[in-house]
């Protein structure tokens, strides 16, 4: 999303789905996993919208949809790519939108080679490192166009020679790429490259690869095209069914291309609704728990970003709103280090940690195994159940010096040292684990003040209803007092290494008997203040001279007028449907992003029916039902001078203001590790060959060759038939992710009391599985058991002339709580998407057999017997 449009968030909000004329839910089971938001899909349906669900399983979402399209897990890019092909070849694309608002007309370097030319690789691939250099993906005549999201640090790192010239960012002149052709006929325009790239993504290929009959695919394609254009809009909804693949980011990219071609971004009833899996997952990337970004998607400095100036020059765009990255960064440094941060010391830029490569969660696990990571904090997560290859995780934690787990109950991550599956098999013994485990009780959201940033970038404040019981405390309490005590212990130190901690502004007021930090004071710090000490209203007020502070520039305004804007709860009966006075959404309380695109280039609505934000000539400003996502008084016919920088370089008819060229990107020259365009690759473990290219799987995917992480042969390799079925995981309404918040509660546990697998009657027949009985599911990692649910909702599909069955597993269970069971994620290997390092757990292969699994060491023997049959050698693991 970030690389296509400029911001890494859903482009729309769930309430806006009611205005859609067609909603395609794919990679998401919205009715089950987001039941409250699903009311807006139901509202759209009642208003006559077409609801389509594309999913391997017939779920509660399918039950309410007009059309369910069963698809083979792991083949979505073929389906979506065929939509691109259909839209272009049948001339169903929205001409004015595509030419004016996307980079379709931009001419790309003649050094670029497509997957069609290189049999599944783009130009710039280094087979040794399995990395791409994106130099040849650039616009003609430019060195590099800065990305507004994604892998900014990587590309600079990859070609350091280019780094020298980065200050100018090649040659976007006043935000314009030097070469473009608005007739779209030049063979190297993005549009023509896109057309050639998807030429072989035909309905016939969909039928052969996805197992979706051609007619059914065309039904979806026609519904989308018929419901897109000036007068109608269609929306896409996705969740982790798209992200959790080795090519997951490119799934979303393909949908972004479809929505750009159909003119559905920035418009009411359109957009791409990214559904997040927890109450504040969006918030945890905005103010990140990730290693490679700072708050507000400012990149984390790389080890060789030696000065603040160099860091800004390397990562900021010269044009668009990232042009002001210096103001965002300096204001953040002022929020961290206050008076200690001065222009003389680069605002304490040297205090920031540096990254030197991948330090993501799975890499950290490897560090634990290798003895380079010694301690581990786990808060609000249960990796022993929720992460892929649980065995590897538990073995890794067994090598730690110390582990801190904060949760409501003693979850599997906290108890692995005495009751994990490895204790049962004898792979681990309590006596041999030296890890010191601290379990600390956590306060629930009802027991503390704070905010959630939910799936549509909306911050909503919650007030404490009751005091937490016993020793339970909030995360805020824990982090604040931990910091306070560390600072007290370091007080008086003259060691330079302690300065970043000692100079921190760590002066939050505390309240009550437990000395709980005032959460509103933290929110106010995030919002930031100006030279007069008053809360700022919006991020355009931020300055790079040290006169402003701001803890997260995209949240600037959430405390405007010294008021907690996130706590607003004006009822829907007292305001219009957009409800701008309910909570506060980033950026600047905009609900539909890039909403300048809801008007034509001349500033007038594309149609009366889809009127949303438009130019008011009399008032000389943008207006509408939402906060305009555009400089309020910039005229639609504004053309920047050649030397314009920052937002001033964005034309009056360019809605994608975060992008250096003001356009949404059909083709991504910078920011992605695995290609400027999406290409279909088979999952890391697949029962099929890639029908398009010799390159079977994503060449840039991240893999780990370790004995604890054995991979299964994929189709075409000997032994692949030992694991003949497609395996996929998902969630149920009744449980919450890894179960820590639901398996312990009787009212939820009783609704889905046992771990089960879902299989088709055909597969049950093939393997002798009985409904209500037990099955054992086997992979090269382990074998687990589950109750059997035989259902017509699982259907065999015909792919490449073969019938393929899929096994469905909800992944909520572990060994503890009221409702217990084996963990589905234990079956999976670690094979990751290269951009976001997410595990592929939505598609893999397995075997399934009737009956319960063996206990103790016999379980290991069963798994080993499979491995030997599949020819998985010890050294190749």
């Amino acid at each position, binding site marked *: 999303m970030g690389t296509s449009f400029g911001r890494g968030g859903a482009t729309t909000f769930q309430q806006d789905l009611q205005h859609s004329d067609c909603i395609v839910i794919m990679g998401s089971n919205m009715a089950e996993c987001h039941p409250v938001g699903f*009311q807006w899909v*139901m509202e759209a349906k009642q208003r006559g919208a077409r609801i389509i669900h594309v999913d391997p399983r*017939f779920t509660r979402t399918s*039950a309410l949809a007009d059309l369910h399209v069963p698809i083979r897990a792991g083949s979505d890019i073929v389906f979506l790519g065929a939509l691109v092909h259909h839209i272009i070849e049948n001339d169903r694309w929205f001409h004015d939108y595509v030419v004016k608002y996307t980079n379709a007309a931009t001419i790309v370097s003649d050094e670029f080679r497509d997957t069609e030319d290189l049999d599944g690789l783009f130009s710039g691939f280094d087979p040794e490192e399995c990395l791409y250099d994106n130099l040849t993906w650039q616009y003609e005549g430019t060195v590099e166009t800065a990305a507004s999201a994604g892998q900014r640090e990587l590309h600079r790192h990859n070609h350091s020679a280019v780094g020298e010239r980065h200050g100018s960012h090649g040659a976007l002149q006043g935000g314009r790429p030097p070469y473009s052709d608005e007739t779209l006929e030049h063979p190297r325009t993005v549009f023509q490259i896109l057309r050639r790239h998807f030429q072989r993504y035909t309905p016939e290929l969909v039928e052969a690869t996805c197992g979706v009959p051609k007619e059914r695919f065309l039904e979806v394609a026609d519904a989308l095209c018929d419901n897109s254009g000036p007068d109608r809009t269609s929306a896409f909804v996705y969740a982790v069914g798209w992200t959790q693949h080795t090519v997951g980011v490119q799934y979303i990219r393909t949908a972004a291309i479809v929505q750009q071609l159909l003119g559905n971004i920035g418009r009411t009833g359109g957009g791409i609704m990214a559904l997040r899996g927890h109450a504040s997952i969006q918030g945890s990337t905005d103010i990140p728990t990730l290693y490679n970004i700072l708050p507000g998607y400012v990149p984390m400095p790389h080890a060789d970003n030696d000065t603040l100036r160099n860091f800004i020059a390397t990562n900021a765009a010269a044009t668009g709103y990232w042009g002001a990255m210096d103001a965002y960064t300096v204001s953040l440094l002022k929020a961290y280090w206050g008076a200690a941060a001065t222009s003389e010391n680069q605002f304490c830029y040297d205090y920031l940690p540096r990254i030197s490569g991948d330090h993501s969660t799975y890499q950290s696990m490897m560090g634990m195994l290798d003895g380079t990571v010694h301690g581990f904090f786990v808060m609000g997560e249960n990796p022993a159940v929720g992460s892929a290859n649980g065995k590897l995780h538990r073995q890794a934690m067994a090598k730690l010096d110390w582990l801190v787990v904060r949760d409501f109950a003693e979850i599997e991550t906290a108890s692995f040292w005495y009751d994990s599956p490895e204790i049962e098999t004898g792979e681990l013994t309590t006596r041999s684990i030296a890890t010191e485990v601290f379990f600390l009780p956590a306060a629930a959201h009802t027991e503390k003040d704070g905010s959630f940033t939910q799936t549509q970038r909306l911050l909503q404040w919650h007030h404490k209803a009751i005091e937490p019981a016993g020793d339970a405390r909030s995360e805020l309490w824990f982090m604040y007092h931990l910091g306070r005590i560390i600072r007290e212990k370091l007080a008086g130190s003259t060691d330079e290494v302690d300065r970043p901690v000692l100079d921190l502004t760590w002066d939050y007021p505390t309240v009550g008997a437990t000395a709980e930090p005032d959460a509103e004071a933290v929110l106010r710090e995030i919002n930031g203040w100006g030279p007069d000490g008053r809360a700022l209203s919006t991020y355009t007020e931020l300055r790079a001279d040290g006169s402003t502070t701001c803890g997260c520039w995209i949240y600037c305004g959430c405390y405007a007028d010294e008021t907690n804007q996130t706590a607003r709860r004006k009822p829907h009966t007292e305001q219009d449907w957009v409800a701008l006075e309910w909570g506060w959404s980033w950026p600047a309380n905009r609900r539909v992003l890039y909403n300048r695109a809801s008007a034509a280039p001349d500033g007038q609505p594309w149609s009366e029916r889809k009127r949303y934000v438009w130019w008011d000539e009399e008032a000389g400003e943008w207006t509408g039902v939402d906060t305009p996502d555009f400089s309020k008084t910039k005229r639609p016919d504004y053309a920047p001078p050649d030397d314009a920088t920052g937002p001033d370089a964005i034309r009056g008819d360019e809605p994608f203001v975060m992008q250096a060229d003001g356009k949404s990107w059909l083709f991504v020259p910078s920011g992605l590790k695995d290609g400027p365009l999406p290409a279909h690759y088979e999952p890391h473990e697949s029962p099929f060959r890639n029908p398009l290219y010799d390159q079977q799987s994503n060449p840039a995917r991240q893999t780990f060759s370790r004995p604890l992480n054995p991979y299964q042969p994929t189709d075409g390799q000997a032994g692949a038939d030992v694991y003949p079925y497609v395996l996929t995981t998902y969630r*149920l309404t009744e449980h919450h992710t890894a179960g820590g918040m639901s398996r312990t509660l009787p009212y939820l546990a009783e609704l889905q009391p*046992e771990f089960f697998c879902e299989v088709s009657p055909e597969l049950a027949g093939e393997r002798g599985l009985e409904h209500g009985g037990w099955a054992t599911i086997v992979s090269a990692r382990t074998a687990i058991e589950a109750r059997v649910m035989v259902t017509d909702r699982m259907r065999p599909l015909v792919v490449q002339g073969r019938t393929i069955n899929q096994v469905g597993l909800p992944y909520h269970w572990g060994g503890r709580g009221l409702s217990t069971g084996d963990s589905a994620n234990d079956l999976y290997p670690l094979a990751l998407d290269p951009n976001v390092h997410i595990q592929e757990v939505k598609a893999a292969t397995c075997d399934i057999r009737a009956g319960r699994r063996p206990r103790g060491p016999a379980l290991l023997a069963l798994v080993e017997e499979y491995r030997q049959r599949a020819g998985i050698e010890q050294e190749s693991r």
Partner: protein
Amino acid sequence: MNGWDTDVARRGFFTDTSVCIGCKACEVACKEWNEVPDDGLEFLGRSYDNTGGLGADTWRHVAFIEQPHGSDGLRWLMSSDVCKHCTNAACLDVCPTGALFRTEFGTVVVQEDICNGCGYCVPACPFGVIDRRERDGRVWKCTLCYDRLRADLEPACAQACPTKSIQFGDLDELRLAAAERVERLHRDGVTDARLYGDDPDDGVGGAGAFFLLLDEPEVYGLPPAPVVTTRDLPSMWRAAAVAGSALLGAAALTFLGRRT
């Protein structure tokens, strides 16, 4: 005798199963508010239903029915069942202690401090709703959140329902809305849609909690033509009285005969 002499409009539920997404928020909200204990952790394998049915410890129950249908080849019906709060409520008729009573809202409620656990009401209910809790002997069922109604709040299940499948309100208005909804669905080609329990002339005099279904009631585990089990009680008493008189007459004749 049943508290009908009230100015308060009769309240009820209209459960529109055509928009139910099977989230079971109603089951959980009901238990949270009414402090109903869990109903046992047992995997039933009845599609996604592990509750089984209404009972002393389950006052809202979501049924899941998988059946062959239409172009998808399959449909998955979901429906949240609840006490019907009958116009002619047999449970209430047979209650010897007065624990069951008709509230000012026209709903039927058990008073837990009066119920003596005799259990007469259990077989009396034509829907099999009211049920005895084994561990305390008393009977329990949906109160239509009587305490919430008295505080001018809607019942917990209706408030928790994300898709307005469960609607709460004045029964007259709900019946009008339901009729319109069926008409709309018929216009949209959903010809299976029908109402259940909305007819004041049915065997229980109409239900205070009625439903829009997409198939025959039996498919959802509902009786097709429920009749208040105490319907024949008056005539039975009349018949008994006649029989009693006849016996008395015969006895008198015998006595007289002996005399002669």
